[in-house]
C-alpha cells in the first residue's frame, strides 16, 4: 500500500475499516502497557528514578558537544573508528564506503531506528548490496516489504497467520503454519545461517558513554551480539543524542528501559562494546540529521532525551487505534509526532494533531519528556508557518470573531444555537464528521445564560 501521500486521518480511517482488528491491536498494546505498569509498580522509587534519568539527560544535552568530543577521544583510544554524519545521506554513504572498502556485498543488521530514519536499507539495495534485518519483527516486516510499525515491536500490526504466509513464501515453512514457536524456530534457522555467513554486521546503539568511549546495545533475541561477534566488521550507528555522561548512569537507564518498553525487568542482553575483538574492525557513526536544529528549539529540545522505549506508543489511545503506519514516519506514535516536524513541517503537519492531548504519553515517559505539551506547541508552529488548511483558518477566524464578542455570541446562540454550527466538533459541517457515527447534542430551549437572566435576580 502506498501510504506516502495519505494523511494520518485518512490512514486511520482505512485502519478502522476492520474493527475487530483494531480491537485486537488495541488490546495487544494495552496488555503491554499493563505489563509496564506492573513492572513500574514493583519499584517503589520509580518516579524518583524517572526524575534522575530526566536530569541526567538534561545534563547530557546541555554539554553534548563536550561529551561527544570526550566519547570520540576515548573510542579512538579504544581502537574504534569514529565517523560523523551531518545528515541521512552522509550516514548512508559512510556505511556504504566501509562495506566497499572491504568488498562486502551482504550485511546483517540488528535493530536501529536511526537506519530506518535514514532509509539505509533502500539506499544500499540501490547500490546492489543486500541487507538482512535480524530482529525477528524487523525480518518479518522486511519480508513483507513494509516499514516497522512500532520502534520496539516492529510487526505488532501483523497476525501470526499473515506471518505464516510470509514464511511459507520466503522460508519454506509448510503452508498454514501459524504457531509462533514454530515460526520463530524457522526464523532462527534462517537467520543463524545469515549470521554465520555475513562479514559485516550493523547494530544500533542504546547508550554511548562519554567517560569511557563504550556503547551499549540492548536486545532480547541476542541478534545484535550474534551479528557483531561473528562479523569481521562491526558498524554501530547512533544519533548524537545517545550520549550519557558516565558508565554508572547506565544503572538508572537500564532499570527504566525494558520496564518501560515491555515490562521486563531488563532486556536479556545489555552488551557493552568497548574495544573491537582481536582482528575485528569496529566503526561508530555519529549522526546529526536535524538533531542540532532540534537542540536549538527550546520548546522541543527535550524530545532529544528519548531512549526509544516505545512506552508512549503503547499507552497512546490514538496509536493503539490507528496503527504505526498511519504516522508515515520511521518513529510512530506520540514521540514520532514531535520528532518528525523538526525534519519537515509540511509533510508531517498532520502528526501533532493526531492526539487528544490526553497526556498519558508524558506520564509513562521514563525520561519525562513533556510530549503532550510539545504536541500542543507544534500545532501553534505549524499553523503559524502556514500549514493549516484554509477552511480551518476561516472557521477559526470566524469562531474567534464570535467568541470575542458577547453580543454576537448571544445572537448567534439564539439563532439556532450558533455553537452547533461553529464549535470545533461541528465545524466543516458540510460533511459533518461528527454526525457520521454520533448523534448531535440536542439544543435545549434556553441557554444557561438565558436561564440565569430569568431566574437569578
Amino acid at each position: 500500500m502506498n501510504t506516502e501521500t495519505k494523511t494520518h486521518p485518512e490512514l486511520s480511517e482505512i485502519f478502522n475499516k476492520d474493527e475487530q482488528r483494531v480491537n485486537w491491536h488495541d488490546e495487544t498494546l494495552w496488555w503491554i502497557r499493563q505489563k509496564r505498569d506492573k513492572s513500574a509498580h514493583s519499584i517503589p522509587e520509580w518516579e524518583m528514578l524517572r526524575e534522575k534519568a530526566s536530569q541526567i539527560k538534561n545534563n547530557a544535552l546541555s554539554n553534548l558537544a563536550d561529551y561527544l568530543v570526550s566519547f570520540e577521544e576515548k573510542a579512538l583510544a579504544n581502537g574504534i573508528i569514529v565517523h560523523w554524519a551531518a545528515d541521512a545521506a552522509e550516514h548512508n554513504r559512510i556505511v556504504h564506503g566501509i562495506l566497499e572498502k572491504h568488498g562486502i556485498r551482504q550485511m546483517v543488521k540488528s535493530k536501529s531506528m536511526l537506519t530506518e530514519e535514514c532509509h539505509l536499507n533502500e539506499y544500499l539495495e540501490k547500490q546492489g548490496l543486500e541487507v538482512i534485518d535480524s530482529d525477528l519483527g524487523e525480518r518479518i516486516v522486511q519480508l513483507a516489504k513494509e516499514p516497522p510499525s512500532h520502534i520496539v515491536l516492529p510487526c505488532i500490526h501483523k497476525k501470526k497467520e499473515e506471518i505464516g504466509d510470509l514464511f511459507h513464501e520466503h522460508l519454506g515453512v509448510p503452508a498454514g503454519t501459524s504457531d509462533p514457536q514454530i515460526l520463530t524456530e524457522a526464523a532462527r534457522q534462517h537467520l543463524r545461517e545469515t549470521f554465520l555467513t555475513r562479514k559485516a554486521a550493523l547494530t544500533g546503539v542504546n547508550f554511548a558513554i562519554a567517560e569511557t568511549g563504550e556503547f551499549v546495545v540492548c536486545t532480547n533475541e541476542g541478534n545484535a551480539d550474534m551479528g557483531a561477534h561473528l562479523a569481521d566488521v562491526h558498524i554501530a550507528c547512533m544519533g548524537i543524542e545517545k550520549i550519557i555522561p558516565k558508565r554508572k548512569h547506565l544503572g538508572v537507564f537500564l532499570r527504566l528501559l525494558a520496564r518501560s518498553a515491555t515490562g521486563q525487568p531488563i532486556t536479556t542482553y545489555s552488551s557493552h562494546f568497548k574495544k573491537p575483538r582481536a582482528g575485528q574492525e569496529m566503526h561508530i557513526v555519529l549522526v546529526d540529521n536535524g538533531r542540532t536544529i532540534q537542540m536549538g528549539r527550546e520548546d522541543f529540545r527535550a524530545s532529544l532525551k528519548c531512549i526509544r522505549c516505545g512506552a508512549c506508543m503503547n499507552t497512546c489511545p490514538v496509536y493503539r487505534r490507528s496503527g504505526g503506519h498511519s504516522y508515515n514516519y520511521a518513529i510512530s506514535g506520540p514521540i514520532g509526532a514531535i520528532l518528525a516536524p523538526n525534519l519537515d513541517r509540511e509533510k508531517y503537519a498532520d502528526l501533532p494533531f493526531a492526539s487528544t492531548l490526553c497526556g498519558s504519553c508524558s506520564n509513562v515517559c521514563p525520561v519525562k519528556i513533556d510530549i503532550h505539551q510539545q504536541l500542543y506547541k507544534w500545532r501553534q508552529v505549524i499553523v503559524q508557518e502556514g500549514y493549516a488548511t484554509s477552511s480551518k483558518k476561516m472557521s477559526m477566524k470566524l469562531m474567534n470573531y464570535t467568541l470575542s464578542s458577547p453580543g454576537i455570541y448571544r445572537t448567534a446562540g439564539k439563532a439556532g444555537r450558533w455553537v452547533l454550527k461553529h464549535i470545533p466538533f461541528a465545524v466543516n459541517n458540510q460533511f459533518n464528521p461528527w454526525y457520521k457515527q454520533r448523534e448531535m447534542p440536542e439544543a435545549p430551549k434556553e441557554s444557561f445564560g438565558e436561564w440565569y437572566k430569568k431566574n437569578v435576580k
Partner: protein
Amino acid sequence: MKRIGLFIPCYVDQFYPNAGIATYQLLKKLGLDVTYPAGQTCCGQPMANSGFEHLTGDCNQLFVDNFAEFDYIVSPSGSCVLHVKEHLHTVNSEDQAAGIRKKVYELVEFLVDVLQVKNLKAKFPYKVGLHQSCHGQRGLLLTQMSELVAPYFSKPQQLLAQVEGLELIELKRTDECCGFGGTFCVVEEAVSVKMGKDRVKDHLTNGAEYITGADMSCLMHMEGILKREKSKVKVMHIAEILNAG
C-alpha cells in the same frame, strides 16, 4: 464573603444548561455568593488546541474583563479551567490574567480542596460509571493517574461517595481518553469515534446506568455514541448528581 464568578463554558451554556444550573444551585446551597458575569463567552481553548493560540487575544481579554474582580472563578469543566490556568495571557492586563490563572477552579477541586465539603445532602440511587476526563485528571490532578507509581486518590470519587444510594461501578480501564479532544473529534473522526465507542462499552459492560464526569465535553462525546447505539444509558455532569435529591 468571598465572591465567586461562575464560568460556564460556551458549549455548556448552549447545550447543557442543566450542568450550569446544577453548578450554580450547588454553590448557592453551600451558602456562597455566586455571580454569572453575562459578558463571558469562551476560554479560547478550541482555537488554541487547533494551533490558533495567536488568535485568542480578544477572547482572553474578554475573559479577564469578566472575571478579574472575583475571589474565585469556578467552572464545571476541567478542560476549560486547565486551559485558562496554562494559557490565559493578555497584552494589556497580564497581572490580572496571572491572578485569574491562580484563582480559577474546576468545580470538583473547588468543593474538595477549597470548601472541603464532607457532607453533601444528595441522593442518586443509580449505578454510575465515572469517566476521568484527561485534562481534569492529568492536568488538574483530580484523580491519581494510573501511569504513575503514587498513592491513589480521587476527588470526584470522594464527592460521589457522599451521595446516598449511588453505586460506583468498576471500569476495566480506569482513565483512558474518550477521544473527544476538541477539533480532534472531527479531524480524526475514525479514531475519535472508536475511542468513544470503546470507552462507552467499558461502562456498559460493567453495568452503568449513568456515565458521569467533571467535563461535559467528554460526556457529550459519549452521549453522541450512546444515542447512536440507541442505548438507554445516560450521561450526566457530576454537578447534577451532587445537586440531586
